[in-house]
């Protein structure tokens, strides 16, 4: 019986365990009273009945409220579509600008990325609040807030996709004497198209949901109505609005699938 010539075990077998350990430690820190958030389960026991009455109202939608929800619902949809459309126009060139493969210039790339990091780090609700103060209550501040929010998302995801794509086709364009602009237009855009379409469709869905929140600060759409019915504790009306949003999200989701199948 001869000993098998087993090659040495690969290193790094402990990595998953280390990762799990790190996650546990971080969780423990966030739960500790000194560093982390404080919460107690007593509150749930004491207050659950308050929530229960709201949930009871929520499961009984007030269908007669439906006609009043239509104009704001249409406004929400219009805001979402306009913001998505403009964002997609702006985001494709910015994505090409933000990726190393399609923009070898370290300085312009750094500027675009830094600006987008700033845009992304500001919450959409804050954009909406500031814009409402600047241009007044209505759909316009909502659209601009969604637009900024969308550009941040699409450019981030699409430029990362471009980085992950094969550099070979771009090199072929360079070898054929194309300028970076031509190479980006003809080759990189074709390769990045699936990611771009996916992100744009995803952002459309996000916008329908986000515009309900933006309405809370006066930026138009269903959010204004949500704020109104919530103030009067009309959870039966609120639940109707939530159902409508659910239907819209499902419709967009199915439409996205259909578009993706044809385009991608």
């Amino acid at each position: 019986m001869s000993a098998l010539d087993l090659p040495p075990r690969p290193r790094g077998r402990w990595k998953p365990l280390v990762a799990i350990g790190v996650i546990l430690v971080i969780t423990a820190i966030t739960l500790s009273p000194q560093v982390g958030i404080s919460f107690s389960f007593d509150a749930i026991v004491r207050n659950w009945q308050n929530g229960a009455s709201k949930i009871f109202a929520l499961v009984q939608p007030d269908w007669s409220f439906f006609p009043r929800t239509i104009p704001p619902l249409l406004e929400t949809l219009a805001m979402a579509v306009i913001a998505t459309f403009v964002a997609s126009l702006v985001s494709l060139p910015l994505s090409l600008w933000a990726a190393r493969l399609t923009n070898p210039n370290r300085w312009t790339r750094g500027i675009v990325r830094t600006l987008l990091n700033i845009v992304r780090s500001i919450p959409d609700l804050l954009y909406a609040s500031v814009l409402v103060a600047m241009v007044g209550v209505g759909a316009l501040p909502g659209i601009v807030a969604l637009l900024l929010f969308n550009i941040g998302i699409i450019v981030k995801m699409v430029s990362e996709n471009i980085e992950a794509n094969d550099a070979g086709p771009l090199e072929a364009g360079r070898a054929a004497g194309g300028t970076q602009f031509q190479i980006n237009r003809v080759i990189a855009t074709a390769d990045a198209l699936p990611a771009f379409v996916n992100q744009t469709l995803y952002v459309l869905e996000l916008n329908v949901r986000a515009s309900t929140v933006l309405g809370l600060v006066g930026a138009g759409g269903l959010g204004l109505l949500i704020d109104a019915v919530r103030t009067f504790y009309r959870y039966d009306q609120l639940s109707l609005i939530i159902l409508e949003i659910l239907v819209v999200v499902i419709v967009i989701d199915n439409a996205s699938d259909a578009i993706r199948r044809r385009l991608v």
Partner: protein
Amino acid sequence: MGAVPFSIHARDVTVRYPNGVVALDGISLDIQAGEMVSVVGLSGSGKSSLIRTINGLVPISSGTLEVGGRHLESLRARELRALRGDIGMIFQGFNLATRASVLNNVLVGRLAHTPTWRTFLGVYRAEDRQIAYEALERVGILGKVWDRASTLSGGQQQRVAIARALSQQPRLVLADEPVASLDPPTAHGVMSDLRRINRDLGITVITNLHLVDLARQYGTRLIGLRAGQVVYDGAVADASDAVFENIYGRSIENRDVLGT
């Protein structure tokens, strides 16, 4: 076509990569217009660097390199693009934009001759499209012109890549291991295409290969590289097995021939 094919004159060309690796170590070569040259060597011998140096994808560290009468080491970006416009390149991995149509891939070969606004709007001149169709016809896959590149087989994709190079109306074609990803019959088909480009159109063709029999069958001149230096430069007919063994630094093995 009518344009004069390119000749190449290299003097003590050295290429050192930023990580310190010396890929080409003082190479001197003269390749005349219209030659069909096979460059042979093991992987890492510098043959890929040599081909990429000729069209400026890899910058020269020292020495002088003259391609088509222009000195690469002193070209500005715009002049380098114009020179590349006259040099077709074929890659081992085809390097097609797989999501784009065959036609749009071939039209990449017209980029250097197309104004930026036309590229931006995607409206190509009728004569550019005609050139692309003729290039596809020459490699026998015009029927695939509207197909998406990803739907083609490997051999068909490499033919599209050759058509892309041809549509440049090149004066020099560089092929970097063009058949290493193909099965033997397809490999011979692609090598025959390259030989026809050389014979029928008179274009200078330089092909990197690592297979002995392909180099013997399709080249007229053989350049052997080992560790970034030229260890053989002569007629293919004179290159005995001993010559190849010297280039490879070991005896010829089964994996060094394609077979049929």
